[in-house]
């Protein structure tokens, strides 16, 4: 350009230019840049907002509008700029683990770094491993873009701080069991309040506690407790089993003993009745002729007894020494008592 502007004295460089050619293509030289300019302007004067998005429109850097999904027009050449923010999408942050693959089977990873996220102190000054997930949505795209420089990092930091405050104010055994839901609920509430405080433009959908476990080295001891609890039940069941084996048998035996006694009773009474009936019969006969019956009975007895007796001595009246009827015994001699 410099070469063209100052007119020289002797030789005019403009003479070298083929002005005829310039004139020939003059129109074209003007039309092409204008055409290019028009195309570029047209290209930069509309934008499309996807269904899950909202657009923040800025004119010279100042926010002038927010647009819903669809086709929209704007001033071209960077005067207006549109930034899309996925407001309808539910976003997720994971603490204490990371989802690594979701094709086929979901797999998780837990490294030392993630471990540090999830290990925390409980109110009884013990350590617990709490994994959780925060689900959130961008509710105010303008605030999300312009109030805080890195909203996601702020959300991470604040939710770690909030979760630790709440777990630090609870008993470890409660967080492990019945207070899980309560912890998640108060964390959500507190986190939402912090989001509003920072004007992050984020709405917390849920906080869900995932695995809440004792720290790694302590886990076996916790399992031992579960085992011991089952052992306790087993001991009790076994004792009850032993009891069930013994008691019904003993009850049966008791009934046996009683039945036997009742048998004895029947036998004893019947024997008594039989014997007395026999006596009564004999007695009635005896009464008819007492003396004769007596002697007959006596002799009948002798009939029975004498043949059975081993040795019989008959002694003369008044004799001192016994006079054996048969003296072939073993030499043992019985002396009669003096009558």
């Amino acid at each position, binding site marked *: 350009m410099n070469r063209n502007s100052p007119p020289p004295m002797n030789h005019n460089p403009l003479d070298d230019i083929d002005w005829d050619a310039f004139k020939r293509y003059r129109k074209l030289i003007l039309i092409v840049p204008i055409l290019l300019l028009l195309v570029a302007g047209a290209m930069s004067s509309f934008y499309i907002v996807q269904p899950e998005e909202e657009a923040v429109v800025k004119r010279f850097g*100042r926010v002038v509008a927010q647009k819903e999904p669809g086709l929209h027009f704007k001033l071209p050449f960077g005067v207006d700029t549109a930034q899309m923010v996925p407001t309808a999408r539910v976003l997720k942050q994971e603490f204490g683990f990371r989802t690594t693959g979701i094709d086929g089977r979901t797999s998780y990873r837990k490294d030392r770094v993630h471990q540090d996220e999830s290990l925390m102190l409980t109110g*009884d000054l013990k*350590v617990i491993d709490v994994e959780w997930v925060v689900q959130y949505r961008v509710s105010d795209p303008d605030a999300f873009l312009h109030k805080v420089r890195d909203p996601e990092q702020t959300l991470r930091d604040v939710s770690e701080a909030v979760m630790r405050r709440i777990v630090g104010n609870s008993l470890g055994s409660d967080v492990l069991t019945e207070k899980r839901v309560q912890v998640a609920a108060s964390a959500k509430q507190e986190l939402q309040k912090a989001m509003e405080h920072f004007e992050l433009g984020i709405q917390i959908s849920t906080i869900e506690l995932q695995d809440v476990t004792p720290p790694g080295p302590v886990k076996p001891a916790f399992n031992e407790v579960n085992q011991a609890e089952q052992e*306790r039940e087993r001991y009790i069941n076994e004792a009850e089993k032993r009891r069930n084996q013994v008691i019904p048998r003993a009850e049966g035996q008791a009934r046996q003993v009683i039945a036997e006694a009742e048998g004895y009773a029947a036998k004893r009474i019947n024997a008594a009745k039989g014997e007395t009936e026999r*006596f009564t019969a004999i007695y009635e006969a005896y009464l008819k002729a007492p003396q004769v019956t007596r002697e007959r009975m*006596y002799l009948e007895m002798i009939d029975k007894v004498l043949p059975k007796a081993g040795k019989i001595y008959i002694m003369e009246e008044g004799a001192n020494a016994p006079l054996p009827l048969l003296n072939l*015994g073993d030499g043992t001699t019985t002396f009669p008592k003096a009558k």
Partner: protein
Amino acid sequence: MLNKQIFSFGAIVVAIAGTFLLYASVYTLDEAEQAVIVQLGAPVGDPVTEPGLHFKKPFIQEVRRFDKRVISWDGDPNQIPTRGEQFISVDTTARWRIADPLVFMQRVQNERGATMRLNDILDSVVRDKISATDLVEIVRSKDWKISEEDLARVQINGESDEEILLKEVKTGRQELVRSILVQAASQMPELGIELIDIRIKRIDYVEAVEQRVFDRMIAERQRIAEQFRSEGEGRAAEIDGDTKKSLAEIQSEAERAAEAIRGRADAEASRIYSQAFGADPEFYKFLRTLESYTSTLGASTTLMLGTDSEYFRYLRNVDAPEAVAK
């Protein structure tokens, strides 16, 4: 012809120069930005915070842009002893923003400088506050409360734990954090910074302490496990004892009943006998004696009978007894 050409080129040059001049005297400010206008090294006027299109003097004024948004600060974890001499690792995080870009530019120049100053100030305030506070006050919050029920549930651990659990929280985590914020924030205006928030992100035991805590937790679990086992054994023994007791009761009760039945039968038999035999006791004695002779005398018996006995009487004399008697 030539003049006309020179004129048209001159117009182009003027247009280009004009555009250039306009461009140099206009600037835009984003929604997230604020700026200080510097004229030949000296700041001019108030900082510009309104986003949009702005004008300045071309060439001699330049625009220094600063972030208007809230910025994160993340400290390195610090090992700090608490008032109870327990070493813990404390990780803090803070939010701040450039409140006065002019002062900010003069004092710390840029965010790098600001971060370095923040490191110094926040680390030292956190260190001061933490080391003057008990661990329970850092971990728990003001509304820490432990019910009798909870205490009973976790009491298996012994006296000292009970003491720790019952310890009243005087300030608590939130109040501690607030006082850190207040003290640190007071040093911020001179840096052109506003400290919005500071939080304790993580508190962890240092490694050696952590191992001790783990050991304690393991010991506690093992105690509970032992308790369960001995509870089981105790209950089993109780049931076994109960079984033995029931057994003895059942057996002795049966025996008692059996004895009573036998006794009643014996008594009944006895009554039957005495009723029948009472008719003539002498005859009964006679009859019974004869029967007794029959059954008691046998092969092993040696009988010695006098010739004067009733049976042998006829051996010597066959007279009628009346004659003998006479």
